[in-house]
Protein backbone atom coordinates (compact mmCIF):
# COMPACT_ATOMS: atom_id res chain seq x y z
CA UNK A 1 0.00 0.00 0.00
CA UNK A 2 1.16 3.48 -0.82
CA UNK A 3 0.29 6.33 1.53
CA UNK A 4 1.01 9.94 0.75
CA UNK A 5 0.48 12.04 3.85
CA UNK A 6 0.36 15.83 3.65
CA UNK A 7 3.14 15.93 1.11
CA UNK A 8 4.44 19.24 -0.12
CA UNK A 9 7.27 19.47 -2.59
CA UNK A 10 8.99 22.76 -3.26
CA UNK A 11 11.77 23.12 -5.81
CA UNK A 12 14.40 25.83 -5.35
CA UNK A 13 13.03 26.63 -1.90
CA UNK A 14 13.82 30.16 -0.77
CA UNK A 15 15.31 31.08 -4.13
CA UNK A 16 14.08 33.23 -6.98
CA UNK A 17 12.74 30.29 -9.00
CA UNK A 18 10.81 28.68 -6.16
CA UNK A 19 8.13 26.28 -7.42
CA UNK A 20 5.58 24.47 -5.29
CA UNK A 21 5.07 21.29 -7.32
CA UNK A 22 2.90 19.51 -4.75
CA UNK A 23 0.85 21.29 -2.15
CA UNK A 24 -0.20 19.30 0.90
CA UNK A 25 -1.20 16.19 -1.05
CA UNK A 26 -2.65 13.19 0.76
CA UNK A 27 -3.77 9.99 -0.93
CA UNK A 28 -3.44 6.26 -0.70
CA UNK A 29 -3.14 3.49 -3.28
CA UNK A 30 -3.91 -0.11 -2.48
CA UNK A 31 -1.72 -3.04 -3.45
CA UNK A 32 -2.69 -4.35 -6.87
CA UNK A 33 -4.52 -1.15 -7.71
CA UNK A 34 -4.16 0.33 -11.20
CA UNK A 35 -4.22 4.09 -10.80
CA UNK A 36 -4.01 6.85 -13.37
CA UNK A 37 -2.55 10.21 -12.44
CA UNK A 38 -3.72 12.97 -14.72
CA UNK A 39 -3.42 16.70 -14.90
CA UNK A 40 -2.06 19.46 -17.00
CA UNK A 41 1.60 19.95 -17.62
CA UNK A 42 3.25 21.26 -14.45
CA UNK A 43 0.46 20.01 -12.21
CA UNK A 44 2.87 17.78 -10.23
CA UNK A 45 2.33 14.36 -11.85
CA UNK A 46 5.99 13.56 -12.43
CA UNK A 47 6.92 14.94 -9.05
CA UNK A 48 4.46 12.55 -7.43
CA UNK A 49 6.02 9.65 -9.35
CA UNK A 50 9.50 10.78 -8.35
CA UNK A 51 8.50 10.77 -4.69
CA UNK A 52 6.80 7.37 -4.81
CA UNK A 53 9.85 5.98 -6.60
CA UNK A 54 12.24 7.47 -4.01
CA UNK A 55 14.04 9.45 -6.68
CA UNK A 56 13.42 12.55 -4.63
CA UNK A 57 12.28 13.43 -1.12
CA UNK A 58 9.31 15.60 -0.14
CA UNK A 59 9.86 19.00 1.40
CA UNK A 60 7.18 18.16 3.96
CA UNK A 61 5.04 15.15 4.70
CA UNK A 62 5.53 11.41 4.45
CA UNK A 63 5.59 8.88 1.62
CA UNK A 64 4.94 5.40 2.94
CA UNK A 65 5.32 2.41 0.63
CA UNK A 66 4.67 -1.08 1.96
CA UNK A 67 4.57 0.27 5.48
CA UNK A 68 7.98 1.93 5.14
CA UNK A 69 8.54 5.68 5.21
CA UNK A 70 10.69 6.38 2.16
CA UNK A 71 10.67 10.14 2.46
CA UNK A 72 13.87 10.37 4.45
CA UNK A 73 16.04 7.65 3.00
CA UNK A 74 19.73 8.06 2.34
CA UNK A 75 20.92 7.78 -1.27
CA UNK A 76 22.01 4.20 -0.67
CA UNK A 77 18.77 3.21 1.04
CA UNK A 78 16.71 4.85 -1.69
CA UNK A 79 18.70 3.03 -4.38
CA UNK A 80 18.14 -0.28 -2.61
CA UNK A 81 14.44 0.48 -2.29
CA UNK A 82 14.14 1.17 -6.01
CA UNK A 83 16.18 -1.87 -6.89
CA UNK A 84 13.99 -4.21 -4.86
CA UNK A 85 10.54 -2.69 -5.18
CA UNK A 86 10.09 -0.37 -8.13
CA UNK A 87 10.01 -0.74 -11.89
CA UNK A 88 9.90 2.31 -14.13
CA UNK A 89 8.24 2.47 -17.54
CA UNK A 90 8.92 5.49 -19.72
CA UNK A 91 7.25 7.17 -22.61
CA UNK A 92 10.53 7.06 -24.53
CA UNK A 93 11.17 3.40 -23.63
CA UNK A 94 14.88 4.03 -22.95
CA UNK A 95 15.89 0.71 -24.36
CA UNK A 96 19.55 0.43 -25.12
CA UNK A 97 19.68 0.39 -28.89
CA UNK A 98 22.85 -1.64 -29.16
CA UNK A 99 21.68 -4.29 -26.68
CA UNK A 100 19.47 -7.17 -27.76
CA UNK A 101 15.97 -7.37 -26.32
CA UNK A 102 17.13 -10.13 -23.97
CA UNK A 103 20.05 -8.09 -22.63
CA UNK A 104 17.81 -5.04 -22.20
CA UNK A 105 15.53 -7.08 -19.94
CA UNK A 106 18.57 -8.44 -18.13
CA UNK A 107 19.95 -4.98 -17.22
CA UNK A 108 18.33 -4.72 -13.76
CA UNK A 109 19.56 -8.22 -12.98
CA UNK A 110 23.07 -7.42 -14.22
CA UNK A 111 23.10 -4.37 -12.00
CA UNK A 112 22.28 -6.45 -8.96
CA UNK A 113 25.01 -8.96 -9.85
CA UNK A 114 22.81 -11.94 -10.75
CA UNK A 115 24.45 -14.97 -12.33
CA UNK A 116 24.33 -15.07 -16.11
CA UNK A 117 22.22 -18.22 -16.36
CA UNK A 118 19.78 -17.09 -13.72
CA UNK A 119 19.27 -13.70 -15.29
CA UNK A 120 18.89 -15.08 -18.80
CA UNK A 121 16.27 -17.49 -17.51
CA UNK A 122 14.42 -14.71 -15.71
CA UNK A 123 14.62 -12.40 -18.77
CA UNK A 124 13.29 -15.15 -21.03
CA UNK A 125 10.48 -15.80 -18.56
CA UNK A 126 9.54 -12.12 -18.68
CA UNK A 127 9.71 -11.97 -22.46
CA UNK A 128 7.53 -15.05 -22.74
CA UNK A 129 5.03 -13.49 -20.37
CA UNK A 130 4.67 -10.55 -22.73
CA UNK A 131 4.65 -12.58 -25.94
CA UNK A 132 8.12 -11.52 -26.95
CA UNK A 133 9.91 -14.84 -26.71
CA UNK A 134 10.73 -14.84 -30.40
CA UNK A 135 12.24 -11.37 -30.21
CA UNK A 136 14.96 -11.97 -27.65
CA UNK A 137 17.79 -11.60 -30.16
CA UNK A 138 16.25 -8.65 -31.92
CA UNK A 139 17.50 -5.12 -31.45
CA UNK A 140 15.01 -2.52 -30.18
CA UNK A 141 15.01 -0.76 -33.54
CA UNK A 142 13.55 -3.91 -35.10
CA UNK A 143 10.48 -3.79 -32.83
CA UNK A 144 7.23 -1.89 -33.11
CA UNK A 145 6.40 0.80 -30.54
CA UNK A 146 4.02 -1.49 -28.68
CA UNK A 147 6.63 -4.25 -28.58
CA UNK A 148 9.26 -1.86 -27.31
CA UNK A 149 6.98 -0.76 -24.51
CA UNK A 150 6.30 -4.36 -23.59
CA UNK A 151 10.04 -4.99 -23.43
CA UNK A 152 10.24 -1.95 -21.20
CA UNK A 153 7.57 -3.41 -18.91
CA UNK A 154 9.33 -6.78 -18.90
CA UNK A 155 12.53 -5.02 -17.89
CA UNK A 156 10.70 -3.16 -15.11
CA UNK A 157 9.40 -6.41 -13.70
CA UNK A 158 12.49 -8.55 -14.22
CA UNK A 159 13.89 -7.59 -10.85
CA UNK A 160 10.73 -8.67 -9.06
CA UNK A 161 9.21 -5.23 -8.60
CA UNK A 162 5.70 -5.11 -7.17
CA UNK A 163 5.23 -1.46 -8.01
CA UNK A 164 5.23 -0.12 -11.55
CA UNK A 165 5.62 3.62 -12.04
CA UNK A 166 4.74 4.43 -15.63
CA UNK A 167 5.46 7.91 -16.95
CA UNK A 168 3.14 8.45 -19.91
CA UNK A 169 3.75 4.90 -21.23
CA UNK A 170 1.32 5.25 -24.12
CA UNK A 171 2.46 8.72 -25.17
CA UNK A 172 4.53 7.45 -28.08
CA UNK A 173 2.15 4.70 -29.18
CA UNK A 174 -0.79 4.52 -31.54
CA UNK A 175 -4.15 3.78 -29.96
CA UNK A 176 -4.01 0.08 -30.74
CA UNK A 177 -0.55 -0.41 -29.24
CA UNK A 178 -1.50 1.84 -26.34
CA UNK A 179 -4.55 -0.24 -25.70
CA UNK A 180 -2.43 -3.39 -25.70
CA UNK A 181 -0.13 -1.86 -23.11
CA UNK A 182 -3.13 -0.98 -20.98
CA UNK A 183 -4.18 -4.62 -21.16
CA UNK A 184 -0.75 -5.64 -19.91
CA UNK A 185 -1.02 -3.28 -16.97
CA UNK A 186 -4.48 -4.54 -16.17
CA UNK A 187 -3.19 -8.12 -16.14
CA UNK A 188 -0.32 -7.14 -13.87
CA UNK A 189 -2.69 -5.41 -11.46
CA UNK A 190 -4.79 -8.52 -11.32
CA UNK A 191 -1.62 -10.41 -10.38
CA UNK A 192 -1.11 -8.05 -7.46
CA UNK A 193 1.32 -5.55 -8.99
CA UNK A 194 0.49 -1.94 -8.15
CA UNK A 195 0.57 0.27 -11.24
CA UNK A 196 0.71 4.05 -11.02
CA UNK A 197 0.50 5.56 -14.47
CA UNK A 198 0.84 9.19 -15.42
CA UNK A 199 -1.17 9.89 -18.54
CA UNK A 200 -2.78 12.65 -20.54
CA UNK A 201 -5.02 10.18 -22.33
CA UNK A 202 -8.50 10.36 -20.77
CA UNK A 203 -9.66 7.19 -22.50
CA UNK A 204 -6.82 5.15 -21.08
CA UNK A 205 -7.22 6.85 -17.68
CA UNK A 206 -10.85 5.78 -17.63
CA UNK A 207 -9.73 2.16 -17.96
CA UNK A 208 -7.87 2.36 -14.65
CA UNK A 209 -9.34 1.49 -11.25
CA UNK A 210 -9.09 5.08 -10.18
CA UNK A 211 -8.07 8.45 -11.56
CA UNK A 212 -6.15 10.92 -9.41
CA UNK A 213 -6.34 14.34 -10.98
CA UNK A 214 -3.82 16.93 -10.01
CA UNK A 215 -4.12 20.65 -10.53
CA UNK A 216 -1.57 23.17 -9.38
CA UNK A 217 -0.04 20.56 -7.10
CA UNK A 218 -3.29 19.63 -5.40
CA UNK A 219 -5.54 16.59 -5.74
CA UNK A 220 -8.87 17.56 -7.27
Amino acid at each position, binding site marked *: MIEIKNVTKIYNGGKAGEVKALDNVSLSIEDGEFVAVTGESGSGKSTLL*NLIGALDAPTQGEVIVGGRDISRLSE*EQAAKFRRENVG*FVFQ*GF*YLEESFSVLVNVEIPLILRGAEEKAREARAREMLAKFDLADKEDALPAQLSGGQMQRVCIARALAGGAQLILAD*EPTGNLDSKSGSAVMDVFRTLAQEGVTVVMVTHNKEFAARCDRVIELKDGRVQ
Partner: protein
Amino acid sequence: MKFKDIAVFAFNDWKKHKGRFFITALLCLLVATLIFAVTYIAFSTQATAREDMRMYVRERDGVVQVNVDSIGAGKDEEGYAVMPAHLRLLEERLSAVGEVQGIKKYETTHTVDFAGASVRVRAAEDGNITVASGAGMEEAPENGVWISAYYAALAEKYLHINDMVGKSFSALIGDRQISFTVAGVLAEGEEGIYAKSEYLYKTGAAEIRSAEISVKIPDGEYSTMDALSAAVGGAEAEVYPQGGAFSSPALSRYNELKTASALTAVLAAAVAVFFALLMFSVLRNNAVIGVYDNIRLYALMRCMGVKRTDIGLMAAAEISVCAAGASLLAMGVSHAFSRLCARAASAILNSNARVFAWEWWVDIACIVAFTVFAAAYVAVTLHKTIKRKNLLSTMRREV
Protein backbone atom coordinates in the same frame (compact mmCIF):
# COMPACT_ATOMS: atom_id res chain seq x y z
CA MET B 1 27.10 -2.48 -6.41
CA LYS B 2 30.46 -3.98 -5.71
CA PHE B 3 33.46 -2.46 -7.42
CA LYS B 4 33.90 -5.61 -9.46
CA ASP B 5 30.30 -5.39 -10.67
CA ILE B 6 30.82 -1.75 -11.61
CA ALA B 7 33.96 -2.61 -13.52
CA VAL B 8 32.31 -5.53 -15.31
CA PHE B 9 29.26 -3.49 -16.24
CA ALA B 10 31.40 -0.59 -17.41
CA PHE B 11 33.48 -2.98 -19.50
CA ASN B 12 30.40 -4.54 -21.09
CA ASP B 13 28.85 -1.13 -21.62
CA TRP B 14 32.04 0.02 -23.27
CA LYS B 15 32.09 -3.00 -25.54
CA LYS B 16 28.47 -2.56 -26.46
CA HIS B 17 28.78 1.14 -27.14
CA LYS B 18 32.03 1.18 -29.04
CA GLY B 19 30.63 3.75 -31.45
CA ARG B 20 29.87 6.28 -28.74
CA PHE B 21 33.15 5.75 -27.00
CA PHE B 22 35.02 5.83 -30.29
CA ILE B 23 33.67 9.33 -30.93
CA THR B 24 34.64 10.35 -27.41
CA ALA B 25 38.08 8.83 -27.87
CA LEU B 26 38.43 10.64 -31.19
CA LEU B 27 37.59 13.95 -29.55
CA CYS B 28 40.04 13.19 -26.77
CA LEU B 29 42.68 12.31 -29.35
CA LEU B 30 42.25 15.58 -31.20
CA VAL B 31 42.43 17.67 -28.06
CA ALA B 32 45.21 15.63 -26.46
CA THR B 33 47.26 15.90 -29.66
CA LEU B 34 46.93 19.66 -29.57
CA ILE B 35 47.85 19.68 -25.87
CA PHE B 36 50.89 17.48 -26.46
CA ALA B 37 51.90 19.57 -29.48
CA VAL B 38 51.87 22.83 -27.55
CA THR B 39 53.64 21.15 -24.63
CA TYR B 40 56.41 19.87 -26.90
CA ILE B 41 56.70 23.25 -28.60
CA ALA B 42 57.09 24.85 -25.18
CA PHE B 43 59.79 22.36 -24.19
CA SER B 44 61.50 22.61 -27.56
CA THR B 45 61.51 26.40 -27.27
CA GLN B 46 63.33 26.14 -23.95
CA ALA B 47 65.87 23.70 -25.36
CA THR B 48 66.31 25.68 -28.58
CA ALA B 49 66.89 28.85 -26.57
CA ARG B 50 69.67 27.13 -24.61
CA GLU B 51 71.23 25.79 -27.78
CA ASP B 52 70.99 29.23 -29.41
CA MET B 53 72.90 30.73 -26.49
CA ARG B 54 75.58 28.07 -26.68
CA MET B 55 75.89 28.68 -30.43
CA TYR B 56 76.13 32.44 -29.89
CA VAL B 57 79.05 32.05 -27.51
CA ARG B 58 80.74 29.34 -29.61
CA GLU B 59 80.60 31.51 -32.72
CA ARG B 60 82.51 34.22 -30.82
CA ASP B 61 85.11 31.79 -29.50
CA GLY B 62 83.75 32.34 -26.05
CA VAL B 63 84.49 36.06 -26.03
CA VAL B 64 81.59 38.33 -25.20
CA GLN B 65 81.49 42.09 -24.93
CA VAL B 66 80.28 44.18 -22.06
CA ASN B 67 79.72 47.80 -22.98
CA VAL B 68 79.85 50.74 -20.64
CA ASP B 69 78.20 53.98 -21.58
CA SER B 70 78.91 57.06 -19.48
CA ILE B 71 76.52 59.45 -21.15
CA GLY B 72 74.18 60.85 -18.55
CA ALA B 73 75.42 58.43 -15.97
CA GLY B 74 78.33 57.66 -13.76
CA LYS B 75 78.91 60.97 -12.09
CA ASP B 76 80.55 61.38 -8.75
CA GLU B 77 79.36 63.64 -5.94
CA GLU B 78 80.75 66.68 -7.67
CA GLY B 79 79.03 65.80 -10.86
CA TYR B 80 81.99 64.35 -12.72
CA ALA B 81 82.45 60.99 -14.30
CA VAL B 82 84.61 58.64 -12.35
CA MET B 83 84.86 56.00 -15.01
CA PRO B 84 88.24 54.42 -14.30
CA ALA B 85 87.10 53.29 -10.87
CA HIS B 86 83.88 51.97 -12.34
CA LEU B 87 85.71 50.11 -15.03
CA ARG B 88 88.01 48.58 -12.49
CA LEU B 89 85.02 47.41 -10.42
CA LEU B 90 83.35 45.89 -13.46
CA GLU B 91 86.57 44.25 -14.54
CA GLU B 92 86.98 42.76 -11.10
CA ARG B 93 83.44 41.35 -11.14
CA LEU B 94 83.81 39.96 -14.63
CA SER B 95 87.05 38.28 -13.69
CA ALA B 96 85.06 35.98 -11.45
CA VAL B 97 83.09 34.75 -14.48
CA GLY B 98 85.81 34.55 -17.10
CA GLU B 99 89.07 35.94 -18.28
CA VAL B 100 89.01 39.67 -19.07
CA GLN B 101 90.89 39.95 -22.33
CA GLY B 102 90.86 43.64 -22.95
CA ILE B 103 89.32 46.98 -22.25
CA LYS B 104 88.80 49.47 -25.01
CA LYS B 105 88.08 53.03 -23.95
CA TYR B 106 86.62 55.87 -25.98
CA GLU B 107 87.64 59.15 -24.39
CA THR B 108 87.11 62.84 -24.89
CA THR B 109 89.30 65.65 -23.62
CA HIS B 110 88.62 69.26 -22.74
CA THR B 111 90.51 72.47 -23.13
CA VAL B 112 92.15 73.87 -20.06
CA ASP B 113 92.37 77.62 -19.63
CA PHE B 114 95.60 78.04 -17.78
CA ALA B 115 97.81 80.99 -17.07
CA GLY B 116 95.89 83.18 -19.48
CA ALA B 117 96.08 80.77 -22.40
CA SER B 118 93.89 77.97 -23.62
CA VAL B 119 95.75 74.70 -23.82
CA ARG B 120 94.62 71.22 -24.56
CA VAL B 121 95.31 68.34 -22.29
CA ARG B 122 97.67 66.07 -24.10
CA ALA B 123 95.99 63.20 -25.75
CA ALA B 124 97.30 60.48 -27.96
CA GLU B 125 95.99 60.08 -31.48
CA ASP B 126 93.95 57.02 -30.67
CA GLY B 127 92.00 59.05 -28.16
CA ASN B 128 93.56 57.53 -25.10
CA ILE B 129 94.79 59.96 -22.54
CA THR B 130 98.53 59.91 -22.25
CA VAL B 131 99.98 61.17 -19.06
CA ALA B 132 103.59 62.02 -19.07
CA SER B 133 105.67 60.46 -16.44
CA GLY B 134 108.15 62.56 -14.67
CA ALA B 135 110.14 62.72 -11.54
CA GLY B 136 107.83 63.22 -8.61
CA MET B 137 104.72 62.62 -10.66
CA GLU B 138 103.60 59.79 -8.39
CA GLU B 139 104.30 61.82 -5.28
CA ALA B 140 102.46 64.89 -6.55
CA PRO B 141 99.41 66.03 -4.58
CA GLU B 142 96.12 64.59 -5.69
CA ASN B 143 95.19 67.74 -7.54
CA GLY B 144 98.70 68.30 -8.71
CA VAL B 145 99.45 69.08 -12.34
CA TRP B 146 102.64 69.39 -14.32
CA ILE B 147 103.25 72.13 -16.76
CA SER B 148 105.68 72.30 -19.61
CA ALA B 149 108.73 74.47 -19.50
CA TYR B 150 107.18 76.59 -22.25
CA TYR B 151 104.24 77.58 -20.08
CA ALA B 152 106.47 78.00 -17.08
CA ALA B 153 108.45 80.49 -19.11
CA LEU B 154 105.32 82.30 -20.22
CA ALA B 155 104.18 82.53 -16.62
CA GLU B 156 107.49 83.87 -15.57
CA LYS B 157 107.55 86.38 -18.37
CA TYR B 158 104.04 87.74 -18.14
CA LEU B 159 102.94 86.92 -14.61
CA HIS B 160 106.30 87.33 -12.98
CA ILE B 161 106.07 84.04 -11.23
CA ASN B 162 109.56 82.75 -10.91
CA ASP B 163 108.97 79.39 -9.36
CA MET B 164 105.65 77.85 -10.18
CA VAL B 165 106.28 74.56 -8.41
CA GLY B 166 104.26 74.27 -5.25
CA LYS B 167 102.11 77.29 -6.06
CA SER B 168 98.34 77.00 -6.24
CA PHE B 169 96.29 78.40 -9.08
CA SER B 170 92.77 78.51 -10.26
CA ALA B 171 91.95 77.38 -13.75
CA LEU B 172 88.86 76.99 -15.85
CA ILE B 173 88.47 73.45 -17.03
CA GLY B 174 85.48 73.00 -19.25
CA ASP B 175 82.85 75.03 -17.45
CA ARG B 176 84.27 74.53 -13.99
CA GLN B 177 86.65 76.58 -11.97
CA ILE B 178 89.09 74.41 -10.09
CA SER B 179 92.14 74.92 -7.97
CA PHE B 180 95.34 73.03 -8.42
CA THR B 181 98.90 73.06 -7.39
CA VAL B 182 101.73 72.95 -9.86
CA ALA B 183 103.60 69.80 -9.05
CA GLY B 184 106.51 70.33 -11.35
CA VAL B 185 107.83 71.58 -14.64
CA LEU B 186 108.55 69.16 -17.45
CA ALA B 187 111.44 69.25 -19.77
CA GLU B 188 111.83 72.13 -22.16
CA GLY B 189 110.13 71.85 -25.50
CA GLU B 190 107.29 69.68 -24.43
CA GLU B 191 103.91 71.31 -24.75
CA GLY B 192 100.84 70.95 -22.70
CA ILE B 193 99.70 70.32 -19.20
CA TYR B 194 100.17 66.98 -17.57
CA ALA B 195 98.45 65.43 -14.65
CA LYS B 196 97.84 62.11 -13.00
CA SER B 197 95.10 60.38 -15.01
CA GLU B 198 92.89 60.01 -11.98
CA TYR B 199 93.02 63.72 -11.47
CA LEU B 200 92.21 64.42 -15.09
CA TYR B 201 89.11 62.34 -14.86
CA LYS B 202 88.16 63.83 -11.53
CA THR B 203 88.40 67.35 -12.73
CA GLY B 204 86.69 66.57 -15.98
CA ALA B 205 89.67 67.50 -18.06
CA ALA B 206 89.30 64.07 -19.57
CA GLU B 207 86.24 61.85 -19.78
CA ILE B 208 85.77 58.26 -20.82
CA ARG B 209 82.77 58.39 -23.15
CA SER B 210 82.35 54.66 -23.36
CA ALA B 211 84.23 51.43 -23.00
CA GLU B 212 84.12 47.85 -24.12
CA ILE B 213 85.34 44.99 -22.04
CA SER B 214 86.00 41.65 -23.67
CA VAL B 215 85.52 38.62 -21.46
CA LYS B 216 86.24 35.05 -22.40
CA ILE B 217 83.62 32.87 -20.76
CA PRO B 218 83.82 29.07 -20.55
CA ASP B 219 80.56 28.38 -22.44
CA GLY B 220 77.11 29.66 -23.26
CA GLU B 221 75.29 27.63 -20.64
CA TYR B 222 72.53 29.39 -18.78
CA SER B 223 74.47 29.03 -15.54
CA THR B 224 77.41 30.91 -17.05
CA MET B 225 75.13 33.54 -18.52
CA ASP B 226 73.40 33.88 -15.17
CA ALA B 227 76.78 34.46 -13.51
CA LEU B 228 77.70 37.01 -16.18
CA SER B 229 74.37 38.72 -15.78
CA ALA B 230 74.78 38.83 -12.01
CA ALA B 231 78.30 40.27 -12.33
CA VAL B 232 77.27 43.01 -14.72
CA GLY B 233 74.02 43.72 -12.89
CA GLY B 234 75.77 43.80 -9.51
CA ALA B 235 78.44 46.22 -10.70
CA GLU B 236 75.88 48.42 -12.38
CA ALA B 237 73.66 48.52 -9.29
CA GLU B 238 76.68 49.57 -7.27
CA VAL B 239 77.95 52.39 -9.45
CA TYR B 240 74.94 53.32 -11.59
CA PRO B 241 71.87 52.66 -9.43
CA GLN B 242 69.68 54.28 -12.04
CA GLY B 243 70.82 51.60 -14.48
CA GLY B 244 71.17 51.67 -18.22
CA ALA B 245 74.92 52.24 -18.36
CA PHE B 246 76.17 48.67 -18.76
CA SER B 247 75.08 46.50 -21.60
CA SER B 248 76.10 43.37 -23.40
CA PRO B 249 74.83 42.00 -26.71
CA ALA B 250 75.30 38.50 -25.31
CA LEU B 251 73.21 39.29 -22.26
CA SER B 252 70.59 40.99 -24.42
CA ARG B 253 70.29 37.85 -26.52
CA TYR B 254 70.21 35.76 -23.37
CA ASN B 255 67.39 37.83 -21.86
CA GLU B 256 65.52 37.87 -25.15
CA LEU B 257 65.70 34.07 -25.39
CA LYS B 258 64.64 33.59 -21.80
CA THR B 259 61.69 35.95 -22.15
CA ALA B 260 60.51 34.45 -25.43
CA SER B 261 60.74 30.87 -24.15
CA ALA B 262 59.01 31.78 -20.87
CA LEU B 263 56.20 33.53 -22.74
CA THR B 264 55.88 30.51 -25.00
CA ALA B 265 55.58 28.24 -21.98
CA VAL B 266 52.87 30.42 -20.44
CA LEU B 267 51.01 30.67 -23.74
CA ALA B 268 51.28 26.92 -24.28
CA ALA B 269 49.84 26.25 -20.84
CA ALA B 270 46.95 28.63 -21.55
CA VAL B 271 46.28 27.04 -24.93
CA ALA B 272 46.38 23.55 -23.40
CA VAL B 273 43.87 24.52 -20.73
CA PHE B 274 41.68 26.20 -23.33
CA PHE B 275 41.64 23.10 -25.52
CA ALA B 276 40.86 20.86 -22.56
CA LEU B 277 37.97 23.07 -21.45
CA LEU B 278 36.72 23.29 -25.00
CA MET B 279 36.60 19.53 -25.29
CA PHE B 280 34.77 19.08 -22.01
CA SER B 281 32.37 21.82 -22.97
CA VAL B 282 31.61 19.95 -26.17
CA LEU B 283 31.16 16.70 -24.30
CA ARG B 284 28.96 18.38 -21.75
CA ASN B 285 26.73 20.33 -24.06
CA ASN B 286 26.21 18.02 -26.94
CA ALA B 287 24.08 15.14 -25.76
CA VAL B 288 24.31 13.23 -29.00
CA ILE B 289 28.01 12.70 -29.28
CA GLY B 290 30.45 10.67 -27.36
CA VAL B 291 30.21 9.32 -23.89
CA TYR B 292 27.65 11.85 -22.85
CA ASP B 293 25.18 10.08 -25.08
CA ASN B 294 25.41 7.28 -22.59
CA ILE B 295 23.68 9.44 -20.01
CA ARG B 296 20.35 7.88 -20.96
CA LEU B 297 21.63 4.58 -19.70
CA TYR B 298 23.08 6.20 -16.59
CA ALA B 299 19.75 7.90 -15.80
CA LEU B 300 17.93 4.64 -16.36
CA MET B 301 20.35 2.89 -14.03
CA ARG B 302 19.53 5.37 -11.33
CA CYS B 303 15.85 4.53 -11.74
CA MET B 304 16.80 0.88 -11.48
CA GLY B 305 18.39 1.42 -8.11
CA VAL B 306 22.05 2.07 -8.79
CA LYS B 307 23.65 4.69 -6.56
CA ARG B 308 24.74 7.90 -8.18
CA THR B 309 28.26 7.33 -6.86
CA ASP B 310 28.41 3.94 -8.55
CA ILE B 311 27.11 5.41 -11.78
CA GLY B 312 29.72 8.16 -11.54
CA LEU B 313 32.45 5.57 -11.01
CA MET B 314 31.23 3.63 -13.98
CA ALA B 315 31.18 6.69 -16.21
CA ALA B 316 34.60 7.71 -14.92
CA ALA B 317 35.99 4.26 -15.68
CA GLU B 318 34.53 4.36 -19.18
CA ILE B 319 35.77 7.83 -20.05
CA SER B 320 39.16 7.01 -18.53
CA VAL B 321 39.69 4.30 -21.11
CA CYS B 322 38.89 6.83 -23.87
CA ALA B 323 41.01 9.60 -22.41
CA ALA B 324 44.02 7.48 -21.44
CA GLY B 325 44.08 5.57 -24.72
CA ALA B 326 43.59 8.71 -26.76
CA SER B 327 46.23 10.70 -24.93
CA LEU B 328 48.72 7.85 -25.24
CA LEU B 329 48.11 7.81 -28.98
CA ALA B 330 48.25 11.61 -29.09
CA MET B 331 51.65 11.47 -27.44
CA GLY B 332 52.87 9.17 -30.20
CA VAL B 333 51.37 11.34 -32.92
CA SER B 334 52.97 14.45 -31.45
CA HIS B 335 56.35 12.73 -31.25
CA ALA B 336 56.03 11.91 -34.93
CA PHE B 337 55.82 15.63 -35.59
CA SER B 338 58.96 16.40 -33.62
CA ARG B 339 60.62 18.22 -36.52
CA LEU B 340 57.64 20.48 -36.83
CA CYS B 341 57.76 21.28 -33.12
CA ALA B 342 61.48 22.09 -33.35
CA ARG B 343 60.87 24.29 -36.38
CA ALA B 344 58.11 26.12 -34.54
CA ALA B 345 60.46 26.68 -31.59
CA SER B 346 63.13 27.98 -33.94
CA ALA B 347 60.67 30.38 -35.57
CA ILE B 348 59.38 31.64 -32.24
CA LEU B 349 62.92 32.47 -31.11
CA ASN B 350 64.08 33.66 -34.52
CA SER B 351 67.00 31.35 -34.06
CA ASN B 352 69.19 29.17 -36.22
CA ALA B 353 69.16 26.53 -33.52
CA ARG B 354 66.48 23.85 -33.78
CA VAL B 355 65.97 21.33 -30.99
CA PHE B 356 63.07 18.99 -30.25
CA ALA B 357 62.75 18.35 -26.54
CA TRP B 358 60.44 16.40 -24.29
CA GLU B 359 60.47 14.83 -20.85
CA TRP B 360 59.08 11.39 -20.14
CA TRP B 361 57.64 12.50 -16.83
CA VAL B 362 55.76 15.30 -18.58
CA ASP B 363 54.23 12.76 -20.94
CA ILE B 364 53.14 10.63 -18.01
CA ALA B 365 51.87 13.69 -16.13
CA CYS B 366 49.92 14.88 -19.20
CA ILE B 367 48.29 11.50 -19.73
CA VAL B 368 47.38 11.12 -16.06
CA ALA B 369 46.16 14.71 -15.72
CA PHE B 370 44.10 14.53 -18.89
CA THR B 371 42.56 11.20 -17.91
CA VAL B 372 41.81 12.22 -14.34
CA PHE B 373 40.42 15.54 -15.45
CA ALA B 374 38.22 13.93 -18.10
CA ALA B 375 36.98 11.25 -15.70
CA ALA B 376 36.32 13.73 -12.90
CA TYR B 377 34.64 16.20 -15.22
CA VAL B 378 32.31 13.64 -16.75
CA ALA B 379 31.57 12.00 -13.40
CA VAL B 380 30.80 15.29 -11.68
CA THR B 381 28.70 16.57 -14.57
CA LEU B 382 26.82 13.30 -14.74
CA HIS B 383 26.38 13.29 -11.00
CA LYS B 384 24.76 16.71 -11.18
CA THR B 385 22.56 15.82 -14.13
CA ILE B 386 21.11 12.65 -12.70
CA LYS B 387 20.72 14.32 -9.34
CA ARG B 388 18.53 16.95 -10.92
CA LYS B 389 15.26 17.40 -9.23
CA ASN B 390 12.39 15.66 -10.95
CA LEU B 391 14.60 13.16 -12.79
CA LEU B 392 11.64 11.75 -14.72
CA SER B 393 10.84 15.15 -16.20
CA THR B 394 14.52 15.68 -16.91
CA MET B 395 14.72 12.34 -18.68
CA ARG B 396 11.63 13.10 -20.72
CA ARG B 397 12.89 16.54 -21.64
CA GLU B 398 16.60 16.09 -22.12
CA VAL B 399 17.61 12.47 -22.10
